């Protein structure tokens, strides 16, 4: 069965050999995994996880970081509910990549669902209410399929800001059983206790 592996569980010497096989036609995603992801992880900045198949081929990766959604002060014409006075803690998918030759094998969707599980754990431990992405225009439909809502184009780039509300803890309980099963299948057993807590 496939696995999801944290980059932090891969020794540097092994990673240096592995990274020669990482091929991604998107040069920014290729550059990130080959040059920056390991050092980011090493100094405690952002986390990266790989999707590995049962023959130990690395098919893609996802990088995540905690982030917040902030807003301007409430204006009269904006009817923001009073209950939401704070910034929204979120988990940001900073990079998602399926390596060349492995598209249409459910790699991206699996990694995105894994990010929802990380979001659920973050919610339990320190607070999290949404998974957010800056989507490339061509990936908007992919994220919509995963229940993300398209908000708007960011002012300073060509990306589209998208949000997936992971719901309140009580509402999320409906999915904990499936999340635990997912973690068993993808060999992320250390997360199971956190999900059940």
């Amino acid at each position, binding site marked *: 069965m496939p696995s999801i592996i944290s980059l932090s569980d891969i020794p540097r010497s092994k990673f240096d050999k592995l990274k020669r096989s990482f091929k991604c036609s998107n040069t920014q995603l290729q550059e990130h995994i080959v040059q920056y992801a390991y050092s980011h992880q090493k100094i405690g900045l952002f986390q990266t996880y790989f999707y590995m198949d049962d023959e130990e081929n690395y098919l893609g990766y996802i990088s995540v970081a905690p982030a917040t959604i902030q807003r301007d002060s409430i204006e009269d014409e904006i009817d923001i509910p009073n209950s939401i006075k704070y910034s929204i803690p979120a988990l940001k998918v900073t990079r998602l990549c399926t390596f060349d030759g492995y598209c249409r094998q459910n790699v991206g969707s699996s990694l995105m669902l894994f990010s929802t599980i990380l979001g659920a754990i973050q919610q339990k431990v320190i607070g999290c209410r949404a998974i957010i992405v800056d989507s490339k225009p061509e990936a908007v439909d992919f994220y919509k399929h995963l229940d993300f809502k398209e908000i708007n184009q960011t002012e300073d780039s060509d990306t589209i800001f998208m*949000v997936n509300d992971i719901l309140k803890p009580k509402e999320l309980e409906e999915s904990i059983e499936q999340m635990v099963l997912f973690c068993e299948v993808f060999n992320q057993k250390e997360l199971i206790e956190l999900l059940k807590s």
Partner: protein
Amino acid sequence: MAVKHLNQQAKEESGIFLTGSDAKKVFSMFSDTQDKKRVTQKQEKLNALLSKTIQIATR
């Protein structure tokens, strides 16, 4: 309305700052008075996606 990155030097890892109707659209999503039907739909969607992915991974 606007969606801006909080950190222009590292947009990919940056948080988001919203104004105007974009702020309303997003922050309304987290209201206490959410439509129960929408919550149920989201729960069903997530469970279906998880189930499908588990099926694909184990076949």
